[in-house]
């Protein structure tokens, strides 16, 4: 295959009319290419494994003139977020990326970016938090930022990372809230696979230039960052909530618009795979979803009605679609690559809460698996489904495949 030409037989996977070229590339670089296509003006980031190659690539692209952006080097993730808060305040489309402890260090300013209504887009490579040190996949970093006012999206493939970053800018700039695009450490970040790079003029059509209503401009001075007294603050919080709720309608709409122009669709708030008649529903996010597809197919081949609900969006939480989709099933298994200590897996907890007001509630089990990058194999997922089928009452927390004696399965 030469650049720009798609090998015969692959046209159904990569639309030749919308694709500039197919790069065989890693998840981190898929994010970098998306940032270039989005014509981002300011990039500021601090390196942390496994995110580093996102910004390494971007700094190369800036240095070579491939993209026209300012790359601001900083001494910490806290400063990186501060930089993009500043640049977004001037109306410049901005980007940063981080992982794990780096995201934790940004925490204070994540609130600020959302409260100041700045449409920053950040890629977070989901990595476990220390102690002890661990560089591998785990969603505890992003999920700990649940209440900061950031939209949170989760990708399953490198292609979805690229498409999601472009859609994230559209969403962020429509609702004036920051968006975090998450990908699993190594299972995406360092995995090389084909990624279609869309044509720039089509991306420009989908994502036009950004020009906010209010911005810092010395020719048009305004006051920013003022004090909001008790008679004002609550309404500003209400506005954030309304914008978040608006995102529930916008995310599927933007995905459809992307599909109309770029000819690719990964689902809206969720992706439903064989859920229509599913008695047993598996709920996943990130790369566990891909492996689950294979296991769901295997159960279907045996005549057992298993379906898969892929969560693409964590904040805002898509309560309505979850109620519709999960409400049809008899039993639900949620697999979490994260844990809220003293409670359960975090997606599980949200799902369970979303289903509470249904008249007929399905049985729901929470499974924690794959923390700190441990492999979640087809066999792990098969065990989850078999356990669910046999379950007589719901269990909030079931640990999968622990290496020492416990009540795990």
């Amino acid at each position: 295959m030469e650049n720009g030409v798609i090998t015969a037989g692959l046209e159904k996977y990569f639309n030749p009319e919308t694709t500039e070229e197919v790069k065989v590339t890693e998840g981190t670089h898929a994010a970098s290419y998306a940032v270039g296509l989005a014509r981002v003006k300011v990039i500021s980031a601090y390196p942390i494994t496994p995110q580093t190659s996102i910004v390494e690539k971007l700094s190369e692209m800036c240095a070579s003139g491939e993209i026209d952006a300012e790359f601001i080097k900083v001494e910490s993730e806290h400063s990186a977020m501060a930089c993009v808060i500043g640049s977004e305040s001037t109306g410049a489309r901005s980007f940063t990326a981080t992982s794990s402890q780096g995201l934790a260090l940004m925490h204070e300013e994540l609130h600020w970016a959302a409260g100041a209504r700045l449409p920053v887009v950040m890629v977070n490579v989901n990595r476990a938090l220390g102690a002890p040190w661990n560089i591998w996949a785990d969603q505890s970093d992003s999920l700990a930022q649940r209440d900061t006012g950031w939209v949170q999206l989760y990708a399953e493939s490198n292609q979805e990372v690229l498409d999601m970053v472009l859609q994230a800018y559209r969403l962020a700039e429509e609702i004036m809230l920051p968006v975090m695009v998450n990908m699993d450490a190594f299972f995406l970040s360092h995995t090389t696979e084909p990624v279609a790079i869309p044509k720039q003029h089509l991306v420009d059509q989908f994502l036009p230039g950004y020009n906010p209503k209010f911005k810092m401009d010395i020719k048009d001075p305004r006051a920013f960052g003022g004090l909001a007294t008790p008679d004002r603050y609550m309404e500003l919080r209400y506005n954030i909530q309304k914008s978040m709720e608006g995102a529930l309608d916008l995310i599927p709409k933007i995905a459809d618009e992307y599909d109309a122009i770029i000819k690719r669709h990964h689902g809206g708030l969720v992706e439903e795979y064989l859920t229509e008649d599913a008695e047993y529903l598996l709920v996943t996010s990130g790369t566990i979803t891909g492996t689950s597809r294979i296991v769901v197919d295997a159960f279907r081949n045996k005549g057992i009605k298993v379906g898969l609900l892929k969560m693409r969006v964590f904040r805002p939480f898509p309560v309505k679609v979850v109620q519709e989709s999960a409400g049809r099933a008899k039993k639900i298994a949620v697999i979490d690559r994260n844990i809220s200590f003293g409670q359960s897996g975090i997606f599980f907890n949200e799902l369970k809460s979303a289903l509470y007001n249904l008249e007929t509630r399905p049985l729901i089990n929470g499974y924690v698996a794959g923390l700190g990058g441990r492999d979640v194999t087809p066999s792990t997922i098969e065990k989850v489904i078999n356990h669910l089928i046999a379950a007589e009452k719901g269990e909030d927390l079931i640990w999968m495949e622990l290496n020492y004696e416990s009540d795990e399965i």
Partner: protein
Amino acid sequence: MIEIRMHGRGGQGAVIACKILANALFREGKFAQSFPAFGVERRGAPVMAFTRIDDKPIHLRTQIYEPDHLIILDASLLQTIDVTVGLKPGGKILINSTLAPESFNLPDKYEVRTIDANSIAIANGLGSRSTPIVNTAILGAFSKFTGILGVTAIEAAIHDAVPIKKEANVRATHEAYEKLKTDPVALMMEQS
């Protein structure tokens, strides 16, 4: 789906080899997914990298436990790690070594070939004499051994994915392709 597991040591280029492999396979109209098993990366430490090949998009995202074929970049790993663990019967094992395939005493259910990729890499100025970068040479031999992909695709992938010494890497691929002995008569001659 075909699954390949590569064993090497940090610095030999296993990770880049799998990237080149994925790139080359895609050029031949196949879907490919490759990734390293990251441990505590340091020069000389054992590393593993994986490549999956299929005619359709690959959804499976786990390490490879039951590979179809193995590539061993450092023969000394055979003494310390059970490299054949999970390898399917009939699997092909390509070893970077000056020794004959029989000298490794691997089970008969596997097909074993060796290639002196170190000498080829050194002759082409790839890496140093003590740590030659053997990844592109081994891919040339792998191409001939398995027929899974052609050297032309590997050559194009090297041009795309290798930042420096592109021509030297391409030469190493071709030389290894030429040198790998697949003819049973030639193999017997070598043993005798």
